[in-house]
């Protein structure tokens, strides 16, 4: 419990737009708070009154199953009042503008807006018009901070400390908000990050990403050789149109994570995936269900991390996270 005394501080930010803007201490605060909240989900009555009277609106402009469910559960377990809105929009201008929708929702006196949106920077845009707090549940190819935080919580539970650890992120780095948030979060905590994927999926100047840069390695076997964890990104098969890789079988052969590939990795190396998985493309069936996989604990941690984020954004102290 000494841990909890140490972190008895408030989170001073109004919004959570990304991990780029957070300091290492703030990331630690969120992870420690999440650790405290984890226990709530294990009770028979999975509810604390921490956010009673707080209203949260979940705006999902892109399809999402687990992130949306995870936020909704987090809100319910904190006793917040929440409403959800889903709308699939392609990036064409039609219907009501984002600004108008958001202002309308705020006019109904919402305290926190959780949003997923297909445009990079959409949350920054929203903060120009809203008084409510904005929590980023994924913006375009920019950031997905709560996903990275839950990945990091999973790693921390396994490792105890981040210092000196090595994580390899594999797949479509270029189009991945999960990768960007993980790179910011992990490098700030002192983790060495390696990126691996075909050059068509590697953004320009990828090595300059994060705090202090990352390693880029195109050879999968070399990329996993010293990894304490691998984080496998979902391959978006719909991107096949833009010819980022020639075929599924070639991708599986060169960048798919199989037992054979993992024989090159240290024995303790764990396997993460933000889901939804394409089994048999970026990850083999054996690995997905194997002993190294921590994919379901990631999902469990997702609820705790989102409880922590909502609680801290609403102004809660980390020590109060134990409230019954």
């Amino acid at each position, binding site marked *: 419990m000494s841990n909890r005394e140490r972190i008895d501080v408030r989170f001073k930010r109004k919004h959570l737009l990304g991990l780029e803007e957070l300091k290492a201490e703030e990331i630690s605060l969120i992870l420690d708070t999440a650790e405290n909240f984890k226990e709530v989900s294990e009770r028979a009555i999975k509810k604390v009154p921490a956010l009673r009277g707080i209203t949260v609106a979940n705006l999902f402009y892109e399809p999402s199953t687990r992130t949306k469910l995870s936020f909704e559960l987090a809100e319910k377990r904190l006793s917040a009042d929440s409403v959800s809105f889903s709308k699939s929009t392609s*990036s064409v201008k039609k219907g009501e503008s984002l600004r108008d929708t958001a202002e309308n929702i705020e006019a109904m006196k919402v305290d926190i807006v959780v949003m997923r949106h297909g445009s*990079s920077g959409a949350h920054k845009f929203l903060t120009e018009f809203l008084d409510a707090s904005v929590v980023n549940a994924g913006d375009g190819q920019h950031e997905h901070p709560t996903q990275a935080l839950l990945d990091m919580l999973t790693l921390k539970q396994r490792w105890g400390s981040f210092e000196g650890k090595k994580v390899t992120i594999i797949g479509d780095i270029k189009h991945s908000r999960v990768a960007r948030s993980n790179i910011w979060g992990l490098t700030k905590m002192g983790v060495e990050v390696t990126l691996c994927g075909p050059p068509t999926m590697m953004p320009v*100047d990828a090595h300059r*990403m994060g705090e202090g840069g990352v390693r880029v390695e195109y050879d999968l076997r070399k990329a996993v050789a010293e990894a304490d964890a691998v984080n496998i990104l979902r391959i978006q098969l719909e991107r096949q149109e*833009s010819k980022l890789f020639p075929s599924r079988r070639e991708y599986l052969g060169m960048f798919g994570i199989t037992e054979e590939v993992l024989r090159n990795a240290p024995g303790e190396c764990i396997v993460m995936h933000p889901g939804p998985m394409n089994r048999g493309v970026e990850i083999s069936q054996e690995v997905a269900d194997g002993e190294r996989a921590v994919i379901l604990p990631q999902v469990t941690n997702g609820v705790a991390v989102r409880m922590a984020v909502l609680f801290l954004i609403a102004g809660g102290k980390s020590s109060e996270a134990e409230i019954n």
Partner: protein
Amino acid sequence: MIKWKNRSEFWITGAEIAAPGRKKPAPGCIHLKRGIIEELVWKKSVETDLPVLELDGYLLTPGFVDIHTHLREPGYEEKETIATGTSAAIAGGFTTVACMANTDPVVDDPSVVRYILDRNEQAGNCRLYVIAAVTRNLEGRDINEFGLLREAGAAALSDDGKYIANARVMRSALEYAGMLELPVISHCEEISLSAEGLMNEGYYSTKLGLAGIPAETEETAVYRDVALAGLTGSRLHVAHASTAGTVEIIRRAKERQIPVTAEVTPHHLTMDDSMLQDYDRNLKVNPPLRSREDVDIMLDALSSGVIDCISTDHAPHNEIDKEVEFDLAPPGMIGLQTAFALLNTELVETGKLGIAQLVALMTESPARVLGIPAGTLDKGAPADLAVIDPDEQWVYDRENNRSISSNSPLIGRKLTGRVQGVFVGGKWTSTV
């Protein structure tokens, strides 16, 4: 504010005059007669019985010339009109502007050219030249009636906003335009490479998660058009050059005597892609703001003469258009009213560019590119002048902005050097 009652013949005395061809401004007096420059003498005062306008402490230049403006009329009058756009122009010291063809209807018919010229006559702010479209409805397929368009008053041809993807169409356009001595202005962008691009490709596009537009998008397109200018011997002008590679291609083309000229915008001379970190839609332009290295090279290229002139690419979009997610916002920023003040603040005040050089790049040089009688103080030239207080500090804001649209990242910025007003054909208009 300068008070002056219009007269048909008078002298302007006491000002420092920046005349193209001279290294530095110097005290001089100008004799204006019936809308024409009668005489320029390099003395601080003259003895005369004619009325005299004393402009001690002011800088006097030829009226600025902008050969790349979007006035949005006809068709998009909610963004800008010929009257408001040219009003912004004179407040920025421009006495001659040339407007692009991507209106609705497109300027691909002589009647549209005449309509625009008529509307400008009614507005009465400054001189206007019309740039007609190269291809029917800007579709890049069939070339327009250049002869009839020229007869109606078109001064140049451009599908600006779109690259003519088909090389054979561009070749025909250059050949045919060459016969009529009309320059073809090319918007160089290999669209299959920029695809869904939203900003310059580089570290910042990677960081922001915005699809990148590599410099090669522009350079491959410039290279093709330069090659076609070489093939046809016709005049090509490269609009809004923005990359180091473009500069290199144009430098080599000029060495080989290919008849090519190029322009650069004020924003590509002063702003870079690192400034997009807050997803400011007013910094979304096409071509995109490039790297700091490119910005520095563009300035060098102006100084060395590889790039010929400065053009604003004034592109109005109103708040409704721009108050959307970054990827949905149309590219473009307005610039007529701030071009001089921005460049004076960022380049002249910092010692990177001489004031006389800047004035030449905004007057004589662009006029020469289009082959129009403007931008000089020579005897017999139109009496088009800008009067500037080079030291006045002012804030560009929504109140003094004369465009209908306010899509400028400079709104709220303090700038040094303010245009006080212009003479157009000897007629004074105060703009402060």
